[in-house]
């Protein structure tokens, strides 16, 4: 019962913050509401007993990515911050809302009508031990992920260099 109450609180926080995030016209507020969404998702991971995943979500997303956004907003859009915000076109909002309602209904129907959700078994909530996670992350055997781990570290390096090159100021010629 406690789990259900926690889930409802988290769902309300996530959905409410997400709606505010896409409807507010000020970008700084959108970034702040995105922070709440990210914390809510981390709470969901804790609720699923993936504590490592929740910690990674908080430290990478809520700590790193949001910080990048706040810096970019401060660098880029001073005008947007000071109230001169984008205007939402009525027709675009209408068509976008219609499209999203249809898509959402379809996806929820497909997910709920599927047979595979009946294979969900009421498993005792046990935390995945950290030792297993670490061994699977850097092991080279079956169902172990050292190749993906190496690849993502190379990918992050490439993205750092690419970001630096792209945002570098061109020197005057």
């Amino acid at each position, binding site marked *: 019962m406690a789990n259900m109450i926690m*889930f409802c609180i988290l*769902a309300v926080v*996530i*959905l409410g913050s*997400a709606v505010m*995030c*896409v409807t507010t016209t000020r*970008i700084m507020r*959108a970034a702040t509401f*995105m922070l709440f*969404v990210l914390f809510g*998702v981390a709470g*969901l*991971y804790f609720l*699923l007993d*993936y504590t*490592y*995943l929740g910690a990674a*979500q908080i430290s*990478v*997303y809520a700590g*790193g*990515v949001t910080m*990048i*956004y706040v810096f*970019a*907003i401060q*660098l*880029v*859009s001073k005008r*947007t911050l000071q109230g001169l915000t*984008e205007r939402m076109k009525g027709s*675009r*909002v209408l*068509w976008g*809302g219609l*499209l*999203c309602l249809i898509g*959402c209904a379809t*996806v*929820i129907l497909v*997910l*709920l009508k599927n047979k*595979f959700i009946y294979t*969900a*078994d009421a*498993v005792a909530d046990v935390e*995945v031990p950290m030792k297993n996670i670490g061994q*699977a*992350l850097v092991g080279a055997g079956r*169902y172990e*992920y050292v190749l993906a781990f190496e690849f*993502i570290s190379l*990918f*992050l390096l490439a*993205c750092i260099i*690419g*970001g*630096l090159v*792209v945002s570098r100021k061109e020197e005057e010629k």
Partner: protein
Amino acid sequence: MTIPVECYFVLSALLFFIGVFGFVTRRNLIAMLISIELVLNAVDINFAAFNRLLYPGSMEGMFMTLFSIGVSAAESAVAIAIIINVYRNFRSDSVDSIKNMKW
């Protein structure tokens, strides 16, 4: 008492389409990027919930979510660099100002 798996499905589908709605309606580059982050988070919730509630013995979904978090962090860093460059060249952060690569 565990939470039924349908709750996670409905929550992540709603979050996904809120993100899609933001992506369709907003015209500010950073707001569109924030909407993409919402979509990615919805997908991550689904991965973790599938793994925990349908296949609790394995860890594939958890690692997929972990790598997805890393990839989206890198993606947002590169996108922010591009946006800063666009703002420096066009003096605007709206997608309507970038039309050179449209056709």
